[in-house]
């Protein structure tokens, strides 16, 4: 064979390039991350259809599901949805309403979170609602408890059936940076108990932590805000983030601060394709 050493050298170079080209997991694209993420759950729960993940822990806990289905006949979040509709319809002091900020509303929960190029940040629905209020001369609402959950419940209810579709625009590298920060947060161990979000919800969904079953991360964002029996009320996604961080004995971050908005961006992206079904009811 002519020039065998040369051909072998070329082959080695090609092989080396091919191996290098398989991006390290830390550098994978968001879509590759999402595929791998989804495959993890397919491996963990091979008989579970993707759309079932929108039901959270009740997709994998048959006993819990029975109670949940009974609760859903008279859902505890109904009153919050009704109050939320009143809020949506009620004019501000200046005579305008939320409709003036959200022309396509109220069924627009699927448009959040998204990358706000102008502001250079992840925009979430609660943040957008408060920005609307402040632009109309109203005081902002608190982000974890209280009446923000009413209007979020109403908007979530009106958005049922829409698909999760978080976009990371390629024309603004800051959006990818925010996604990567959210991803980093998700897989970072923290707190005295040294857990990452992934330890519970990607590594060990279906396992018990004390008496509770760990819910799978896939689909976790579809049903917020959520009525939690433990809270006795409806609460936001960032309230749950706060609680989770406290449970691993880490100091929580600020609701609607950069850390939790980036985390929401990453986590919601992971559930792209799943149907929104909020508000939800959980233990």
């Amino acid at each position, binding site marked *: 064979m002519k020039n065998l050493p040369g051909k072998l050298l070329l082959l080695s170079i090609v092989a080396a390039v091919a191996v290098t080209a*398989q*991006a*390290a*997991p*830390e550098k*994978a694209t968001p879509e*590759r991350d999402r595929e*791998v*993420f989804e*495959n*993890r759950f397919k*491996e963990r729960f091979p008989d579970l259809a993707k759309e079932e993940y929108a039901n959270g822990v009740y997709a994998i806990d048959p006993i819990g599901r029975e109670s949940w289905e009974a609760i859903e006949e008279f859902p505890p979040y109904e009153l919050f949805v009704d109050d939320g509709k009143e809020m949506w319809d009620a004019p501000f002091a200046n005579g305008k309403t939320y409709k003036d900020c959200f022309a396509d509303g109220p069924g627009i929960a699927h448009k959040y979170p998204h990358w706000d190029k102008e502001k250079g940040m992840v925009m979430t629905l609660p943040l957008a609602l408060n920005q609307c209020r402040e632009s109309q001369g109203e005081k902002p609402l608190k982000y974890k408890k209280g009446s923000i959950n009413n209007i979020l419940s109403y908007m979530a209810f009106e958005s049922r059936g829409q698909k999760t579709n978080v976009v990371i625009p390629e024309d603004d590298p800051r959006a990818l940076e925010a996604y990567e920060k959210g*991803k*980093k947060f998700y*897989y*970072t*161990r*923290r*707190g*005295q108990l*040294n857990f990452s979000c*992934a330890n519970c919800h*990607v*590594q060990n969904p279906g396992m018990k932590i004390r008496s509770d079953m760990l819910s799978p991360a896939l689909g976790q964002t579809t049903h917020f805000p959520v009525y939690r029996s433990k809270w006795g009320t409806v609460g936001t996604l960032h309230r749950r983030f706060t609680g989770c*961080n*406290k449970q691993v*004995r*880490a*100091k*929580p*971050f600020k609701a609607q601060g950069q*850390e939790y908005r980036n985390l929401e961006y990453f986590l919601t992206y992971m559930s792209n394709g799943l149907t929104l079904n909020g508000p939800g009811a959980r233990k």
Partner: protein
Amino acid sequence: MNMKKLTAMLCLGAIVAIAGQSVIAAEKKAAPKVEATDKSAAKSTESSGDKAAAQSAIAAAESARKKAASIDGEWRDTGKMIKKAQAALKAGDFAKATKLAKKAENQGKLGYEQAQAQQTLKMPSYLKY
């Protein structure tokens, strides 16, 4: 010796004895005051030393907490422990203040080390890329 002289000598002896007892009793009463002053002084020195140690421990704990917080590594209970230590200091329970502060300092150090170790993202092996 006649009886009058003997009686006078006995009386004088009795007076001297009684007077001596009084002096001894007075000295005994005085002595505790001297001891008490010594003990109080000792306690005061020890106590101010304990107070200084507690203050120093609290300062060290707060420094460790801030260091952990600077890289998002603060744990949930560190700040609460420092506040409890400060309350104990204020109440004069220096031993408790020091104990709590040292525990908080340890948490601050561990939180910082943890955050340092977690600086670089490493994807878990159960995710199959």
